[in-house]
């Protein structure tokens, strides 16, 4: 496997392999010296055309813990401000001999175009409304580490599904691992068509709340909304926000998740985010280990991610 562009590149077996490898990197991250020499001499570039705190830092931390060198590219301080196009920028970076390009862009499909131009491995760190595969992997890992497996779990993804790449990647990954996924949102925040999505749809959070194993709140992406899709933030919170009162109606073993950054007081209240069942900070911590596993599989292991060697699978 050369690139990680979407969850479907992996399939259920590939996801499982990444999650098992992540166990080893969680152990590495817990040491006094959380660093292994696995990717010495490799260079990882983060190419972010869109703002990000956690994903970018998470990838850079992951690369450094694998002893890879990291370079960072931000649009504001680069030749992009002089009018350099995407292809020229990418080919310039590739010509420097980098091994992986971690890319985020506001337009869907950009990582695929980049992958067709370069020698390096490309990791999609979020493209438009489309995919964010490493977020889905870390979400799966977080759930699996608390509940053992995703098989048969009832998961609700709540909120702005239409603009959410996290929702698209999560739906694919959760369903591949056997969870039953319900999308909870007002009709205006659902994509025009859900044909082929392995999900149920519900417009009222209160209907499903009590039976959930995982409630996954999405950020209301006001920067992507071009029209009035909800009457007001207050009404949204009343109908779809995880308030302290709603958190009280969740099962005692349910998990509260959010990909960050949170709009506190909109999709999630501060009390719910700080609830004992909230695994939001664990998601961030696991993000580093999951991204170490992804970078290691793409750059280091020589293992074929899609078809793991049978004898490796048998021994693990």
């Amino acid at each position, binding site marked *: 496997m050369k690139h990680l562009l979407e969850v479907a590149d992996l399939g259920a077996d590939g996801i499982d392999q990444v999650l098992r*490898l992540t*166990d*080893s990197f*969680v*152990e*590495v991250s817990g*040491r*006094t*010296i959380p*660093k*292994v*020499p*696995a*990717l010495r001499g490799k260079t990882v570039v983060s190419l972010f055309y869109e703002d990000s705190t956690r994903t970018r830092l998470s990838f850079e931390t992951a690369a450094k813990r*694998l002893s890879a060198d990291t370079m960072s590219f931000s649009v504001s301080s680069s030749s992009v401000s002089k009018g350099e196009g995407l292809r020229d920028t990418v080919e310039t970076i590739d010509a420097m001999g980098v091994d992986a390009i971690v890319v985020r862009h506001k337009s869907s499909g950009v990582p695929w175009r980049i992958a067709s131009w370069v020698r390096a491995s490309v990791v999609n760190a979020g493209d438009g409304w489309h995919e964010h595969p490493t977020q889905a992997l870390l979400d799966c890992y977080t759930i699996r580490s608390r509940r053992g497996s995703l098989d048969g779990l009832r998961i609700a993804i709540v909120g702005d599904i239409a603009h959410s790449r996290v929702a698209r990647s999560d739906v694919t990954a959760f369903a591949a691992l056997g969870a039953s996924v319900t999308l909870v949102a007002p009709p205006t925040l659902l994509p025009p068509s859900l044909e082929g999505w392995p999900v149920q749809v519900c417009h009222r959070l209160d209907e499903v709340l009590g039976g959930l194993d995982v409630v996954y709140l999405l950020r209301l992406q006001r920067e992507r909304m071009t029209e009035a899709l909800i009457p007001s933030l207050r009404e949204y919170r009343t109908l779809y926000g995880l308030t302290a009162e709603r958190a009280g109606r969740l099962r005692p073993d349910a998990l509260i998740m959010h990909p960050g950054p949170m709009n506190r007081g909109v999709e999630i209240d501060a009390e719910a985010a700080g609830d004992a069942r909230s695994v939001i900070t664990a998601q961030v911590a696991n993000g580093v280990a999951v991204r170490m596993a992804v970078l*290691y599989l793409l*750059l*280091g*292991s*020589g*293992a*074929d991610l899609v078809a793991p*060697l*049978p*004898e*490796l699978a048998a*021994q*693990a």
Partner: protein
Amino acid sequence: MAERERHATPPRGGVFVARTMVMDAADLRRAVTRIAHEIVERNHGVDGVALIGLQTGGVPLARRLGAALADVEGSVPLGTLDVAFYRDDIGLRPVVPEAVTDITFDLSGRTVVLVDDVLFTGRTVRAALNALNDYGRPRAVQLAVMVDRGHRQLPIRPDYVGKNLPTRFDEQVDVSEEGVAIGDVVRP
């Protein structure tokens, strides 16, 4: 040969077919008992001694050695180490960890006895020495192996050996509960 090396050796995905048994289960048990005594003798007891089994072949052996030490002198801490991320052939072949490293005690100031089933090129041990550095600074590191089959590619020698076994480079050595066998890996 240890599992982790065998699965990468052509023909990949083959099965091990034993040609000769060189040690049986009783021989193995006697060798473990003798090595346990040697460890106690060399270190004047087991104070500060810790056993670390290398994944995967060294782990059951380290457990047996731990039990034998407990009989002879006293119990010692036991850890397991997977050296995948420290190997020098990453990128040349599939190097995927077999299991999660589990070392719950501080290595600083201890005498660490690394335990593996077969000592061959020495590259696994080299990787293990690097890995140990990241867990602390042991006072000394010693190496115990059930079989030393020669063909070293690095300046590494074992401190405790179950059996010295001259082999051809392309042969395979298998250590299991039932004993030690020489054979070949063939495609089924």
